[in-house]
């Protein structure tokens, strides 16, 4: 094991090397973010009177950087469409620029860091700490989005290695690999086919619903799988990253879904965007509804530069507004009450709403999305175009999601019963068997499809 003094340079070098595997020039981008945020943080601390100004300059620079890499082509294509419609000369622009991996994630972490300094929650840290914070290899690609105050102190790597780090880390790592390879990738084969532009004509009603459900499951297992791998890899180094998922398809309402899905993004949006906006208006209804729609549209745009993502965000914003109106009515008229039927209806509507919203999110064009949505709701037909394996597998994964909380509870109980360091049948035999089965499943379904959906965001 390395001495404490060498751990940080070693992890930073490993993180830089990991990032450079996507292209050596890309390393410049997170390093530039580190330099910018380091300098501004120091200036904010040195001149508290000008801290707000430096914070806004920093946020503007970071958003400009993100916009240049992520939204430039989208904006120019749409401007040119508008210009062509007005019969004017289109704007010519250079070849599109590749998106540096994880830019949406570390840009948000950097903005959070500047706001935290402004609010006096963190003190400016060293340049090396910041480089490690933005580039820490387990979560640089797709999060979880962390706060400086929860990660930077852990990146001193002062903890001595303990066997539980290995158990906890490997548990998450192996489970993440299974989620990604054995579930997400397999579902992806049918989902990619169903949403492909090459498929002419709309699917049947059954296929439309199955495709939407299958994509909802694919993206959950893909992203939760990645998050588990990131949390597990960090745990092997003794670092605890925040959780990103908590059985999201068990949500009882739209706000509940956002407290279970991509939890670290929801937390960021709540702390740095939604709360300050609504604090200004003290939660007055109209600004609240507008902010819900606006913030969720931004969440959609954060996922990618496309109208499908914007529509997805708007749909979720609308769900949140409708639920908020219902809650206000419930407070005003106690007769509405908390009956089981009403709660059950909300649970069902939430699940349906989430599933429907995945269609524009995944579809390659709004035209394709509208074709699938019209099959789901308007043009009813009962044909099936895929092998029975697709339908059976999708139902099996749905059933797994339904019993997931029960499985997690049982495993936690077993873990608690065995104690932290006590030897037990579970620890001696259970884990090696589970890891072997997991790795076999991983290898069985390994088709070199290592692309994670969220790494594109």
């Amino acid at each position, binding site marked *: 094991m390395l001495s404490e003094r060498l751990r940080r340079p070693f992890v930073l070098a490993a993180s830089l090397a990991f990032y450079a595997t996507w292209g050596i020039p890309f390393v410049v981008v997170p390093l530039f973010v580190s330099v910018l945020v380091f300098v501004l943080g120091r200036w904010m601390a040195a001149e508290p009177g000008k801290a707000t100004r430096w914070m806004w300059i920093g946020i503007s620079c970071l958003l400009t950087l993100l916009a240049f890499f992520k939204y430039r082509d989208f904006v120019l294509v749409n401007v040119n469409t508008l210009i062509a419609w007005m019969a004017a000369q289109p704007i010519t622009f250079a070849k599109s620029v590749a998106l540096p991996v994880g830019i949406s994630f570390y840009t948000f972490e950097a903005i959070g860091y500047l706001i935290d300094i402004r*609010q006096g*929650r963190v003190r400016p840290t060293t340049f090396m700490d910041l480089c490690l914070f933005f580039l820490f290899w387990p979560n640089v690609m797709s999060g979880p989005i962390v706060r400086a105050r929860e990660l930077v102190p852990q990146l001193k790597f002062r903890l001595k290695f303990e066997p539980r780090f290995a158990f906890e880390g490997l548990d998450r790592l192996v489970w993440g690999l299974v989620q990604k390879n054995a579930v997400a990738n397999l579902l992806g084969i049918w989902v990619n086919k169903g949403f492909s532009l090459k498929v002419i004509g709309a699917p049947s009603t059954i296929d439309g619903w199955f495709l939407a459900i299958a994509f909802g499951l694919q993206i959950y297992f893909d992203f939760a799988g990645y998050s588990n791998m990131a949390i597990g890899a960090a745990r092997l180094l003794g670092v605890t990253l925040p959780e990103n998922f908590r059985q999201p398809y068990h949500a009882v309402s739209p*706000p509940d879904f956002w*407290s279970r899905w991509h939890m670290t993004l929801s937390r960021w949006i*709540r702390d740095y965007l939604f*709360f300050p906006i*609504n604090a200004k208006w003290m*939660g007055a209804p109209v600004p609240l509804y507008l902010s819900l729609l606006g913030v969720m549209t931004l969440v959609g745009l954060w996922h990618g530069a496309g109208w499908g993502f914007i529509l997805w965000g708007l749909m979720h914003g609308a769900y949140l507004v409708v639920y908020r109106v219902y809650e206000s009515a419930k407070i005003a008229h106690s007769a509405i009450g908390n009956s089981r039927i009403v709660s059950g209806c909300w649970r069902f509507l939430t699940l349906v709403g989430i599933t429907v919203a995945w269609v524009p999110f995944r579809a390659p064009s709004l035209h394709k999305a509208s074709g699938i949505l019209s099959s789901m709701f308007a043009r009813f037909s009962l044909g099936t175009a895929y092998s029975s394996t697709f339908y059976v597998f999708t139902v099996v994964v749905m059933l797994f999601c339904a019993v997931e909380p029960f499985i997690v509870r049982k495993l936690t109980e077993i873990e608690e019963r065995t104690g932290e360091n006590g030897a037990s049948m579970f620890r001696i035999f259970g884990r090696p068997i589970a890891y072997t089965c997991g790795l076999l499943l991983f290898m069985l379904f390994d088709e070199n499809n290592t692309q994670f959906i969220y790494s594109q965001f």
Partner: protein
Amino acid sequence: MLPDSDTIRNAAREAAAQIAGRPIKDDQRLVSSGLIDSLSILRLISLLEKKLKVSIPPTMLQPEDFDDLDLIVETIERVAKAAD
């Protein structure tokens, strides 16, 4: 003048219980447990301002500052100190 810590704690307990619709224990997590959402915190701030007759500007705050009674007391004392 800011009331003492016990008065702030009692006011916070009453206000949080009013919003959550149930009694609040000393170490109970309010925000991270989902008992109180970010909008309810604005109501909590408004209630505390009335009860304690202090001004709590929410723009420098985050929901986690209200995660339990200890944190609420700390937050109000910090905000009052900054305003002096």
